[in-house]
Structures are given as structure tokens and as C-alpha cells.
């Protein structure tokens, strides 16, 4: 593999790489604002300037400049090398690049940084970006000097509403045009552009339009400063109080890798952030996914219920055990859920096996809109996983409805909250011995005789299998809310009461069990729970 030298460090690169890309892959950070690995190169922030050493035997490319000479109190002509933006310069074999070791580059960066801060408002105390702001980081790393300009800074519009999700502050903007490129290249909707010039230029929305495509929050995500803020996260939390858990988006079957940002002090989740994953989502997430975290706190089942009345866990468990005893194994049905992780489903499967239950069904959230960028129509994170676990034996929800109508189902133990087609909910009314492990209010929780509060994906570690059969782990962020517990814990309790033996005791064993089956074994013919 060819390689070049960056600050006396050998950096291998693939043909076609730019310097900054190769360096980033090798874990060396060349400071940059406008460059983003997932976007085209703009090379307009000039922060990544590096000095290229001339090849042996060739003269360096030098510029004539005037330098101030203190001694003679006059300007004297000088030569300084022409610096190149590392984000645009293609890497070549044997090339020698100086980044932090070249005093010219260092001075250039310091100057760029100072210019960027020239008209920047003193907003850090009220800015949502503060704490994860490139301007702050790079000031410390590359400038670390005091303000020299004494004039009043230029004032520009603040709090411009770009659309339902994004608010723009022109004073903080450094014109890196990342948001412009995200709209144009990722969302294929070039609704943003730049107007005016010099000090005065700012980002605007195309006339008569709003910033309302499906990936608006990515513009905020790529914004290296506090210019674009999401109206959802705005003024909600200070980022240095937040902690991040590596999670997987459960908004749809794509399963984008994400970070769940939560505040450990009040156990509240504030936002998702995309996590780089070349196999699935590259660097991006859709708006629906980014805002999907809200479901973790909304419409949750937080206490055990019998016929809709809140009761203590012990009572509910007792009652559930009684109900399950009511019918013979032949008439006992198990309803898996594509909303839940492999662990939960595996636990319920084992429970059903121990019961000897013969009927196996699966449900999930209804179909939604998909697109050819990231979103998929199947809004369940784990359809493939459930089908794989059940070895394709699990039948869709419509069959359950039919079975109920025929009176084949005496007991139903259901996991999950939603069903593919809301109109089928009626069928569940007739069930008397109906135990549900639900995270959210919904048709299942409403009609179940006993509801045990299951904790959501953010409150327990779990494995999800996305539409391509890729198995991804999602880590626990916050503690289980209310009286909820992970579904497999409930199953464990139930099994204890019913004196059934499950093939696992610890979570690790459960996980290894659910790992056992190969995701790709899922029968492709099986429809997603939301129906075709």
C-alpha cells in the first residue's frame, strides 16, 4: 500500500485518498471545519492548510510576501511556502507533508482561527454547541491568544427559523457550507444556499421553501459550530452533563448505529446522534430516527396492571401465572415482537417451549414510508431477528386473529406494544387469559388482562438484527423507568412462579443462546409484521 509522511509519521493511503482522509483513517486529526468524510470537498475554511515539501531536486513553490521588520521599522520582502488545503490535496506516494511541525501552517491556522472568531458573538453561555464546539476546541489547540480587534463586530440575523426542526444563527456561522452540501448531496434537496459575501454572507433557504426534507437534523449534526440548532434539543441540556451510550436506532429495520445522549442525574434521554458505521448508515440518520428517542419517555407502561388497574409487581405476577395455567399447551399462544431485542424474544421463546406452547406468532409496528437513502418501510428494528429465532415458525399477526376467531387460543402471552394493523385489535378483546409484556400503551396493553411493564430498548442491553441480517448490539443508557424491568426478567419471574426451567440463568447465557441462530436463516418469504 502506498504511503506518505505526515509530521514524520507514515500514513498509508488508498489511491484517490486526500491527505486529510488518509490521515483520519490512520487516526491523525488534521484540523478542519468544512471538510466532512461523507460530503464533497469545499476547501473553504482553510483550517486544514498544510505545507508540502517539494520533491527532492525540485524548488519549493514560494510566494513573495512583505514581513514587518521591527528593527528598521519597515516592510521587507520575504518568501513563504504556498500552503495547500489537506482536504483537497490528493495524496501521492512518498509525499512529505508538514502539519503541526510546519511553523507556517501553524501560523496560518492561528490566523484562520482568529479571523473566524473576529465577529463571533459572546454566546457560549447560551449556545447549545458549547462543549462540543469546534471553535472552542481549535481555539485552545491552535490559537490560544487574546482578542486583538477592538471594533464592534458585525451583527447578523439571529434565531432565523429555517423549518420545523432547525433554527439558524448567522452570527455564529462560519460559512463552512456543510449544511448546504448535506441538503444537496445526502437529502438530494438543495434547499439551502449562501447569500451576500465577505463579512455579510449567510446561509438562506431557497425562496418559498422551508428546510423540511427528511434529513434536516443532519444539517445541525454536521454544523461544526452553534449556527444551526435543532429546535428539539435547543436549550434543553448542556452537553457536558450528558453521557453517551452506543445504541442502535430502533426507528425502522435499517438499524442505524447511533449514540444515545442521556443525563445520568435525572435519567432522561435528550437526543440521538449518528454513529459512524460504514456497513449501515455511513455517518447519517434520518429525522424520524433522530427524534425517535422521544418514544422512550412518552406513552410508557410504567406500572403493572390488572384490567387497567395499577397493582404491585407481585400481585400482577401471581395473576399472570394463574391466567397462564388456565389453558392447555395446545391452546397456549406466544406472541413475539419485532420491536424487541433478540434477548427478550429468545426468553419468551424458551418460556413457550417450557410451557409446551405450540402456537407462535409475531407482531410489530405498522408499515410506514421508506426512501432509498436510509429509511425502510418496515418500522420494526428486529423483524429479521424474530423470524430467525423462531426458525420461521412464527406466523404473522393476521393468523393469530384468525386463530382467536376460531377459538383456538386459550392463553396468549404477548410481547410488545403495537400490532401491524390497528383494525385487528378488536380480535384481542375476546381473549380473557391475555398476559402482555409491553413497553408502551397500545392495542396490546389496552386489551391484556395483565400487563407487565417491560423496559424499553434504552433501558437494557439488547441485540437487534436489521433488514440486511446484520446483528447489532445496543447498550443500556438509563435505568429502567418506573416499575418496568427488561422483558426477559419478567419471563424469568413467571417461569419461577410456574416452576418452569429455562435453559439460561444469566443474561450472558441468554445472549449466547440468542446468538446461536444465524440471522440469514430467516425465511425471506415471511412478510414484515406491518403486512405487505
Amino acid at each position: 500500500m502506498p504511503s506518505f509522511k505526515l509530521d514524520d509519521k507514515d500514513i498509508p493511503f488508498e489511491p484517490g485518498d486526500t491527505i486529510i482522509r488518509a490521515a483520519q483513517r490512520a487516526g491523525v486529526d488534521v484540523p478542519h471545519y468544512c471538510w466532512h468524510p461523507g460530503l464533497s470537498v469545499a476547501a473553504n475554511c482553510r483550517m486544514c492548510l498544510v505545507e508540502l515539501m517539494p520533491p527532492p531536486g525540485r524548488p519549493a513553490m514560494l510566494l513573495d510576501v512583505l514581513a514587518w521588520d521591527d528593527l528598521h521599522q519597515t516592510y521587507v520582502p520575504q518568501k513563504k511556502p504556498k500552503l495547500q488545503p489537506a482536504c483537497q490535496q490528493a495524496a501521492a506516494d512518498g509525499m512529505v507533508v508538514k502539519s503541526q511541525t510546519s511553523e507556517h501552517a501553524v501560523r496560518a491556522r492561528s490566523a484562520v482561527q482568529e479571523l473566524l472568531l473576529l465577529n463571533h458573538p459572546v454566546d457560549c453561555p447560551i449556545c447549545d454547541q458549547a462543549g462540543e464546539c469546534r471553535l472552542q476546541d481549535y481555539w485552545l489547540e491552535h490559537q490560544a491568544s487574546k482578542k486583538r480587534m477592538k471594533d464592534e463586530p458585525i451583527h447578523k440575523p439571529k434565531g432565523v427559523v429555517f423549518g420545523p426542526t432547525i433554527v439558524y444563527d448567522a452570527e455564529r456561522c462560519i460559512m463552512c457550507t456543510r449544511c448546504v452540501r448535506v441538503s444537496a448531496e445526502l437529502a438530494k434537496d438543495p434547499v439551502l444556499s449562501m447569500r451576500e459575501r465577505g463579512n455579510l454572507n449567510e446561509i438562506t433557504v431557497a425562496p418559498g421553501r422551508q428546510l423540511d426534507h427528511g434529513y434536516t437534523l443532519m444539517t445541525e449534526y454536521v454544523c461544526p459550530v452553534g449556527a444551526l440548532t435543532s429546535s428539539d434539543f435547543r436549550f434543553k441540556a448542556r452537553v457536558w452533563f450528558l453521557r453517551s451510550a452506543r445504541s442502535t436506532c430502533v426507528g425502522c429495520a435499517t438499524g442505524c448505529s447511533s449514540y444515545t445522549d442521556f443525563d445520568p442525574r435525572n435519567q432522561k434521554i435528550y437526543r440521538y446522534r449518528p454513529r459512524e458505521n460504514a456497513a449501515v448508515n455511513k455517518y447519517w440518520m434520518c429525522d424520524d430516527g433522530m427524534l425517535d428517542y422521544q418514544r422512550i419517555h412518552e406513552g410508557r407502561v410504567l406500572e403493572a396492571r390488572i384490567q387497567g388497574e395499577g397493582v404491585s409487581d407481585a400481585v400482577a405476577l401471581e395473576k399472570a401465572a394463574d391466567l397462564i395455567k388456565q389453558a392447555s399447551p395446545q391452546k397456549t399462544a406466544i406472541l413475539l415482537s419485532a420491536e424487541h431485542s433478540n434477548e427478550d424474544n429468545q426468553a419468551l421463546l424458551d418460556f413457550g417451549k417450557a410451557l409446551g406452547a405450540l402456537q407462535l406468532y409475531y407482531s410489530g409496528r405498522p408499515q410506514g414510508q421508506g426512501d432509498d437513502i436510509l429509511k425502510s418501510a418496515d418500522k420494526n428494528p428486529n423483524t429479521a431477528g424474530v423470524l430467525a429465532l423462531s426458525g420461521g415458525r412464527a406466523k404473522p399477526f393476521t393468523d393469530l386473529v384468525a386463530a382467536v376467531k376460531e377459538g383456538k387460543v386459550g392463553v396468549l402471552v404477548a410481547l410488545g406494544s403495537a400490532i401491524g394493523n390497528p383494525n385487528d385489535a378488536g380480535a384481542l378483546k375476546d381473549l380473557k387469559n391475555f398476559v402482555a409484556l409491553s413497553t408502551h400503551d397500545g392495542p396490546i396493553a389496552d386489551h391484556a388482562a395483565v400487563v407487565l411493564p417491560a423496559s424499553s430498548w434504552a433501558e437494557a442491553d439488547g441485540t437487534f438484527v436489521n433488514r440486511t441480517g446484520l446483528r447489532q448490539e445496543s447498550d443500556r443508557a438509563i435505568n429502567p423507568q418506573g416499575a418496568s424491568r427488561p422483558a426477559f426478567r419478567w419471563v424469568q419471574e413467571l417461569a419461577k412462579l410456574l416452576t418452569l426451567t429455562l435453559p439460561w440463568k444469566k443474561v450472558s447465557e441468554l445472549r449466547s443462546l440468542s446468538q446461536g441462530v444465524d440471522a440469514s436463516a430467516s425465511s425471506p418469504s415471511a412478510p414484515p409484521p406491518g403486512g405487505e
Partner: protein
Amino acid sequence: MEPLDQELESSELELPTEPMLLNVGPAHPAMHGTVRIVMELSGEIIERCDVQVGYLHRGFEKMCERGNWSQVFPYVDRCNYVSPMLNNVGFALACEKLLGITVPERCQWYRMILGELARMSDHLTCDGAMAMELGAFTPFLWMIKGREMVWEIMEEETGARLTHSFGRVGGMAAPPTDGFKEHTRAVVKHILTIIDEVERLLLGNRIFLDRLENVGVISAADAVSLGWTGPCLRATGIPYDVRKAHPYLKYGEVDFDVPVGTTSDSFDRFMVRLAEMRQSARIIEQCLERMADKGPVNVDDPRVVLPPKEEVYNSIEGTIQHFKIIMEGLKLPAGEVYSYTEGGNGELGFYLVSDGSGTPHRVRIRPPCFLITAGLERVITGQMMADVVPSFGSLNMIGGECDR
């Protein structure tokens, strides 16, 4: 006399005594409220004893792992709360060692002066309390009077009488006040006279001497093996003083003596502390001579030192600097360091482990008191019950530092 008596053996006349369990503390006035000693007495002799500490365990080290580096200062203040400034300086030095920076000269002199003043207040308190516990109330009052003077200086400099979180990584919170030098000179002079008076009052006092001399003796070998440092170790004749052995700040450039004892009994520990106060006075004099009146006290490094407030409020650069240091915390490079200074009771070590983030991964304080208190058992076993109080007092056990 009854004939019966004559027939008895002398042994039968003795009263049978089985060992008695006696529990002293923790709510005992002489136990500083935080130590419990369970003794097994035969008569008045202590046969066995078990010293139990931990009645002031406040989770210092756990709390340090929650904030950022500069938020540790208030906690170290309350570790050895008789000489907080020494802890402040010690911790600041540890962080600076990890950062690889040294503070300006003026700050070093300043730190030394404040530190030695703190040492004085420490020894004044210890000796005064010792005398009081032996019933001599007057010296206590005099010495507390002297301590008040020291605290006045501290208050004027730092704004707090006792727990002044005044140290900063890379300097001090504020430069010396204008009247600092003459104020200090006057106070030191006064304290020296107090020491002389106390000496004249106590050293001619039969009771005082009898209670202390040849009481609570410990051999030098034991003391070393127990990890004793500071006045208690020097009282055994071993001249180990971090300021001399491994000079930090400017201690290499001032001249002072290391007073040592001979018999390593409670009396020696008392006298070593008195002598050390005189040495501290000497050091302070020299420091005052050499400390510049003008000049920076903080290192000139925006990564470490906070900007002046008017810059924070008026320029984005200042605001950013403030944010980086306050919100993300001082970034100490990943690594570990063991830095040691001479605290009030001996070698005050800080073992810091940093993972490069703004939050300490581990802050371990090496408490001289803890090890000295560990030796208490060895000191008082075989002694008379009544000698526990002076022996314990002479060790100058500080609950906050011992239990953390």
C-alpha cells in the same frame, strides 16, 4: 491482729484481677471525636488495645472522582483542616508535576510563606491542645491567640479563616495583598514571643514534665517500619524532612535546621513542634526578604489559568478559555504521578491517576496521620491508662486526614 491473717499466704492476700475491657471514644473529648480505643486493662496497665478509626470517613477520594481537577481543592482543604494551605499547595504541586509546569518565582515564595504559616498554626493547635488535655489551660489560650493572628493573615489573603481553597493549578487564586509583608512580619514576631512564654510556663512545670517525659516511647526502627514521618519521626532522632531531603518550591535556597529528638517520647514530640515553629519563622523571614512585590503569580498558559473576568464577559476568546477550563475541566495529560511535600504531620503524598479526561480517575492522598495513628497501638500498649491522653495528643491525629 486476727490469727487468721497470719495463716494466709501472701499470694492469697492479693486481690484476683482479671483483665477489664475499657472503651474510650469516639465521643470522648480527648479522642478528637473520631477515634475509638478498646483497651484490655489489668489494673491500670494496658495489656492489649485495638485502635479503631473511620469515624470521620467522608469519602474524600470518591468525591474527587466526580468533579474536575480544580474541584478537588475544597476537599483537600478539609483533609488536614489544621493546616489547609499545606494541602492546597501539595495538591497544586502534584497537578503541576503532571502537567510539567512550574509556577513563577513570586508564587513559589508566596506559597512557601503561606505554607509555613499554616504549619505554625498546625503546631500551635497541636501543642496547645496537648497542654490543655494535661490540664494546662493557659498555654492553650495563648497559642490559640497566636493561631488567630495567623488566621487573620490567611483571611486577609484568601478570604477564609480556615478552609481557604486558595491554591490553583498553575498559581494562586490571587496575588499577595499590599500589607502582606509587614503584617506577616509583625505576626511572626508575636508568635515567637508566645512560644517563649509557653516554654517558660511549661518547662518549669513538674507535673507537665512528669506526664510527658519517657511516656509514649517508640523506637526509631518501629517508627520507620510504621511509616512515620514528620515531627513524630524526627522526635525519634531521624532527621527526615521532605523540605530538606527532596527540596521543592524554593526550600533548597533558604536555610533552616531540622530539629530532632533524642528519646522519642511525648515530650520530644512536643518540643520538636515548638522548635519547628521557630524554624518556620526563619523560613518566613527569608521568603519575605526574597519575594518580589510585583510580578505574576500565575503561569502564562491559557490552557491552565483562567482569564480575567472582564475578558470572559467581553471577548469570545476569553469566554472560550473560561468554558474550556471550567466546563470541561482542566485537562491533565493521561498518566500517573506521586508528588510529596512536607505536610503538618509529615510526608503528604498525592498519587494522581489521570486518564486524560477532565475528571480525575483516582486521587489518592497519602495521609501521614493514618500511619501515625496506626502506631498508636504500639505506643500505648504497656503504658498506664492515664498516659493514653498525652501520648495520643502528642501524635496530633487529625481526623479528616486520617479517615479522609
